[in-house]
C-alpha cells in the first residue's frame, strides 16, 4: 500500500510538472507562463529609459533621449555606432516582431508554430524568398560601407539579446515557448524581401491567361484595358519625353500560352498602397515647400513602423524606421524630406517550362538546359522536418510543378521576379538619410531596384520632385500580361529601362507633385506600362484638391490626409439611384433608398451611406461578374473603375446577365435585385448590432501579428474612410504612418501612426497613438538640434563602450 501511494504520488508529481511545463495546443506551458518570477508577470512593465548600458564594440558613447511618446533621439559620434545603436534600440522595443517577420519572410514559421503553417512556408520557399535574400546580401557586400553598417546593426541587436535572461523575453516568446536567435545581416535582407513581397509580390498573369482563354481577346480587352478612359498619372501628362533615346523592346508577337490553371499563390493585399505629395514654395502658405506621406498597410500590432531620430555630427535624420532595416525609411533631415508610395509595376512574369523525361533539364531555344536544385528543409515544431527540392531555371524558381499545386510531370511554371535579382536597396535609405539636396536624392535612389517606389522629395532649398524608381524591365508591348512560353528566348526580359529614363518630374509648373498608386504615366511615355491594378480614385481627389486653390497650409494637408470623400461612390451612386426602378420598393426599402439619396459621399463614422453603398454596390459587382466564378480556374474580376464604366455605358452587355436565372438581366435590373438583398442584410445587421452606421459596419481593428489574437489587438477603432478614400482606412488596413513636413530650416514636422513605440503589450506605449490617429490628430516631432535634453525629453539613457 505504501509503495502504491508513493508511486502514485510520484506519478502525479511528474504529471503536474509535465502538464504545466508543456505547450498544449494553443495553451502556453502554464506553469512557465504564469509564474511571477520568469513568466508573463515580468513583462508587466514599461521600458527603462534612463541609466547607462555597456555595449561591447561601441567606439564611443551614444546618448539616447526619449520623449513622452517613447521616441528615441539617438546621438552617436559615428555611423557605425549609430546603426549599432539603432539595432540595439529596435531590438529593445520590438525584438519579437522584428524576428517573427524574418521567420515569416524566410518560410520558417513552422519552426515556431508547428505544421499548420507548413503550406505557407513551402510557398515562401518556392517563391524564392531565401534565394532573393541571398542575392541581396551579395549585392550589399559589394559595398563595404553598407556591409559594415548592416553588420553593426546586427551586432547591436545581438548585444541586446545577450543581455536577456528568460524572464526578460517578450511575451510572445513565452506564449509560444521558444527563444530569440542571433540576428544576422541575412535577416535584414529577408526583411527587405518581405517588403518586396508585400509591395511587388502581386501579379495577374495566370488569372489573365485564364480570362483571355475563356472570354476571348476582344472581351478581355474590354474588361482589362491597358489604360482607362480617364488617367491622371503621377508624372504630369504634359511631360516632354523627347530626351529618352533608348526605344521600347520591339514586339516579337509570340503566341500566348492558353493554359488552364486552377490555383495561384497567396497575393499581397491589393489595398497595399499609399499617398504622398509635396507643394512648392509658391503654393505654400509660408513660402516653404511642404511634403506629406502616408503609406497604407495592414493595421498591425506591434505597429509596422518605429519612429526614431538618428544623428551623428555629420547628419541628423528623423522619421519612420522599419524594425530590421537600417536608417529612416520615410522622414526628413535638416535639408530634405522624402516619402514613398508603391509604384505597382508588373515585375513578376510566369513562364511555362517543359521538362525532359527525368525532369532534370528544360527546353530552351530548341535545346535542353540543366535545371539547378535548391533543397529547402523546413523544420517543424514537434515533428520531423519537411524537405522540398525546388528546381531553378534561368527564369527563376519553378514554383508550380508536380510537387506543388499541380500534378503535371512534364510541365511547370517558372517565376521571373525582380525580387530574385538582388540589389543594394539598403544603401538608398542610408544615403537618403544623409542627402542634402536634389542631386544627392537622385543619386541615393539610383541604386534602388525593388519594390519600385514613387519617391517624393522636398528640400529647404525649395525644390520638389518625384521619381518613380526601381529596376524595371523594358518590356515589349503586352509582355508579361499572360503566361509566356519559357522555351522562346524572345519572351525573356531583354533589358531594363535605363535608370535615368525612369519617369520623374522636378518642380513641375503646376506647383505640386503627388502619387497615390495610380498610373505612373500616360500613353506618351515611350516604355510599355499597362494597368496592373492602379488606383483610380484617391489620386484624382488629391490632384483636384491641389488644383482648386493657390496656397496650402498645414491644416489643408491634415484635412486631405483625413479626407473621407468617396469619389468612387460619387461616380456611381447617383446613376444607380436614378436608373433603378423604385416602384416595387417596400416602405422599409424606400427608407433606406432615401438614406442613400441623402448621403454626401463622405465615409464618416456616423453616416449610414457608406454601409448602404458597400452592401449595394458590392452585390451589384458580384452579380455582374458571376461569369468569373468558374470551378478550378483562378480568375480575377475586373477592376472597380472599369466595372462602373460598363454599368454606366454598357448596361445591356451580356456580362450583366446573371447566369443562374432564366431572365436576361441588364444593369438596371441588377441595381434593384442587389438593392433588395442589401436592404435585407442591412436590416439584419441593425437587429444584431443596433445600427448600420459606418463605425459599426466597418469595425476597424488593429490585429496582433499572431493571427490578430484578441487579447493583444485593438477593436472598434472609431475612424472613417475606406480603401479608395484618401484616408484609406478599411477594416484592417490603412494609413500606417501619417507624416507632414514643412521645409523650414530646420524642418518642422508632424507624424503619427496607429500603434505605439513599444512592442510590449504590457506597456502603455504599446497602442497609445491609436486614439489620436483615429481622431485625425498629429503629434509634433521633436527634432532635436543638439545632444541636449530639452523639456520634451523624459529620460536619457547612455550606451557606453564596455571595453
Amino acid at each position: 500500500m505504501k509503495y502504491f501511494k508513493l508511486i502514485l504520488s510520484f506519478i502525479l508529481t511528474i504529471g503536474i510538472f509535465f502538464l504545466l511545463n508543456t505547450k498544449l495546443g494553443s495553451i502556453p506551458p502554464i506553469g512557465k507562463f504564469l509564474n511571477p518570477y520568469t513568466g508573463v508577470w515580468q513583462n508587466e512593465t514599461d521600458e527603462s529609459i534612463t541609466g547607462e548600458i555597456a555595449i561591447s564594440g561601441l567606439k564611443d558613447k551614444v546618448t539616447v533621449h526619449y520623449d513622452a511618446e517613447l521616441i528615441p533621439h539617438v546621438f552617436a559620434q559615428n555611423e557605425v555606432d549609430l546603426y549599432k545603436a539603432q539595432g540595439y534600440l529596435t531590438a529593445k522595443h520590438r525584438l519579437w516582431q522584428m524576428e517573427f517577420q524574418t521567420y515569416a519572410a524566410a518560410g520558417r514559421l513552422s519552426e515556431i508554430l508547428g505544421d499548420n503553417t507548413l503550406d505557407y512556408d513551402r510557398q515562401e520557399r518556392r517563391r524564392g524568398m531565401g534565394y532573393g535574400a541571398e542575392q541581396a546580401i551579395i549585392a550589399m557586400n559589394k559595398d563595404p560601407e553598407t556591409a559594415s553598417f548592416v553588420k553593426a546593426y546586427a551586432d547591436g541587436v545581438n548585444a541586446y539579446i545577450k543581455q536577456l535572461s528568460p524572464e526578460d523575453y517578450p511575451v510572445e516568446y513565452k506564449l509560444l515557448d521558444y527563444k530569440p536567435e542571433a540576428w544576422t545581416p541575412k535577416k535584414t535582407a529577408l526583411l527587405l524581401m518581405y517588403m518586396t513581397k508585400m509591395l511587388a509580390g502581386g501579379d495577374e498573369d495566370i488569372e489573365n491567361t485564364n480570362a483571355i482563354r475563356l472570354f476571348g481577346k476582344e472581351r478581355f480587352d474590354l474588361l482589362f484595358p491597358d489604360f482607362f478612359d480617364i488617367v491622371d498619372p503621377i508624372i504630369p501628362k504634359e511631360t516632354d519625353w523627347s530626351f529618352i533615346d533608348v526605344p521600347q523592346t520591339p514586339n516579337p508577337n509570340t503566341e500566348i500560352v492558353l493554359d488552364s490553371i486552377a490555383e495561384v499563390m497567396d497575393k499581397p493585399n491589393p489595398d497595399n498602397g499609399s499617398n504622398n505629395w509635396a507643394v512648392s514654395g509658391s503654393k505654400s502658405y509660408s513660402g516653404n515647400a511642404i511634403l506629406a506621406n502616408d503609406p497604407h498597410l495592414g493595421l498591425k500590432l506591434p505597429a509596422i513602423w518605429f519612429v526614431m531620430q538618428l544623428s551623428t555630427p555629420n547628419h541628423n535624420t528623423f522619421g519612420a524606421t522599419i524594425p530590421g532595416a537600417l536608417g529612416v525609411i520615410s522622414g526628413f533631415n535638416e535639408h530634405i524630406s522624402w516619402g514613398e508610395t508603391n509604384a505597382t509595376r508588373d515585375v513578376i512574369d510566369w513562364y511555362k517550362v517543359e521538362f525532359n523525361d527525368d525532369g532534370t533539364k528544360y527546353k530552351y531555344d530548341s535545346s535542353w538546359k540543366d535545371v539547378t536544385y535548391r533543397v529547402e528543409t523546413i523544420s517543424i515544431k514537434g515533428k520531423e522536418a519537411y524537405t522540398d527540392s525546388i528546381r531553378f531555371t534561368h527564369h527563376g524558381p519553378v514554383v508550380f510543378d508536380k510537387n506543388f499545386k499541380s500534378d503535371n510531370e512534364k510541365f511547370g511554371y517558372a517565376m521571373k521576379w525582380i525580387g530574385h535579382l538582388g540589389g543594394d536597396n539598403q544603401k538608398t535609405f542610408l544615403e537618403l538619410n544623409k542627402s542634402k539636396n536634389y542631386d544627392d536624392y537622385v543619386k541615393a535612389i539610383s541604386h534602388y531596384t525593388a519594390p519600385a517606389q514613387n519617391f517624393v522629395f522636398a528640400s529647404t532649398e525649395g525644390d520638389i520632385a518625384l521619381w518613380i524608381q526601381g529596376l524595371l524591365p523594358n518590356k515589349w508591348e503586352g509582355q508579361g500580361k499572360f503566361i509566356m512560353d519559357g522555351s522562346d528566348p524572345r519572351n525573356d526580359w531583354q533589358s531594363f529601362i535605363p535608370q535615368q529614363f525612369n519617369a520623374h518630374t522636378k518642380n513641375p509648373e503646376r506647383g505640386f507633385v503627388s502619387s497615390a498608386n495610380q498610373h505612373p504615366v500616360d500613353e506618351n511615355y515611350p516604355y510599355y506600362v499597362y494597368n496592373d491594378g492602379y488606383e483610380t480614385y484617391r489620386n484624382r481627389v488629391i490632384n483636384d484638391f491641389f488644383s482648386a486653390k493657390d496656397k496650402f497650409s498645414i491644416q489643408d494637408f491634415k484635412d486631405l490626409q483625413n479626407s473621407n470623400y468617396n469619389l468612387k461612390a460619387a461616380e456611381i451612386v447617383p446613376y444607380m439611384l436614378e436608373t433603378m426602378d423604385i416602384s416595387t420598393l417596400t416602405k422599409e426599402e424606400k427608407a433606406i433608398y432615401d438614406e442613400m439619396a441623402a448621403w454626401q459621399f463622405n465615409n464618416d463614422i456616423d453616416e449610414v451611406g457608406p454601409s448602404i453603398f458597400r452592401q449595394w454596390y458590392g452585390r451589384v459587382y458580384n452579380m455582374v461578374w458571376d461569369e468569373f466564378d468558374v470551378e478550378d480556374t483562378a480568375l480575377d474580376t475586373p477592376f472597380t473603375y472599369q466595372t462602373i464604366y460598363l454599368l454606366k455605358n454598357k448596361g445591356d452587355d451580356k456580362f450583366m446577365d446573371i447566369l443562374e436565372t432564366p431572365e436576361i438581366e441588364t444593369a438596371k435590373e441588377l441595381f434593384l435585385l442587389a438593392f433588395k438583398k442589401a436592404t435585407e442584410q442591412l436590416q439584419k445587421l441593425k437587429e444584431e448590432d443596433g445600427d448600420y452606421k459606418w463605425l459599426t459596419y466597418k469595425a476597424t481593428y488593429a490585429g496582433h501579428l499572431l493571427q490578430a489574437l484578441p487579447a493583444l489587438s485593438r477593436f472598434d477603432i472609431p475612424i472613417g474612410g475606406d480603401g479608395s478614400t484618401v484616408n484609406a482606412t478599411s477594416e484592417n488596413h490603412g494609413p500606417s504612418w501619417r507624416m507632414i513636413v514643412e521645409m523650414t530650416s530646420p524642418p518642422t514636422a508632424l507624424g503619427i501612426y496607429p500603434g505605439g513605440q513599444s512592442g510590449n503589450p504590457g506597456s502603455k506605449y504599446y497602442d497609445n497613438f491609436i486614439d489620436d490617429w483615429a481622431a485625425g490628430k498629429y503629434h509634433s516631432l521633436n527634432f532635436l538640434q543638439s545632444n541636449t535634453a530639452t523639456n520634451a525629453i523624459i529620460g536619457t539613457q547612455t550606451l557606453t563602450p564596455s571595453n
Partner: protein
Amino acid sequence: MPKSIINFGLTIILALVLSLFLPWWSVMTAALATSLFIPLKRASVFFIPFFAILLFWAVYSFVLSSGNDYTLAKRISILLSLGGNPYVLILVTGIVGGLAAGIAAVFGKQLSLMLKK
C-alpha cells in the same frame, strides 16, 4: 508553534530562495523539501503548501501588476478566457503554483514515510 505554520512559512521562504536560481518548478522543490523535514498529516499535507505557494505567487503577481495598472494582466486574462479580469488571473496563477506545490508535497510526505523505516 504548530508544525503547519512552520511548514507554511518555510515553504514560502524556500520557494523564494530557490526561485533565484531555479525555473518555475522551484515551488515544487520547495514544497517537497519542506514536507520531507516537517511532515504534516492528512489533508494539510497538500493544503498547507498549496496555500503557501498560492499566497506567494498571488502576492508577487499582484505587486508586479498593480504597479503597472494591470495593463498586461487584463490582456492575458482575455487570452486565457478569464474574462479580462486581472484578479482572476492572479488567483489562477496562485492556484497553478499551489497545485504544483501541493502535489509535490504529497510525494514528499510519502517519501518521508518510506525513509523513516
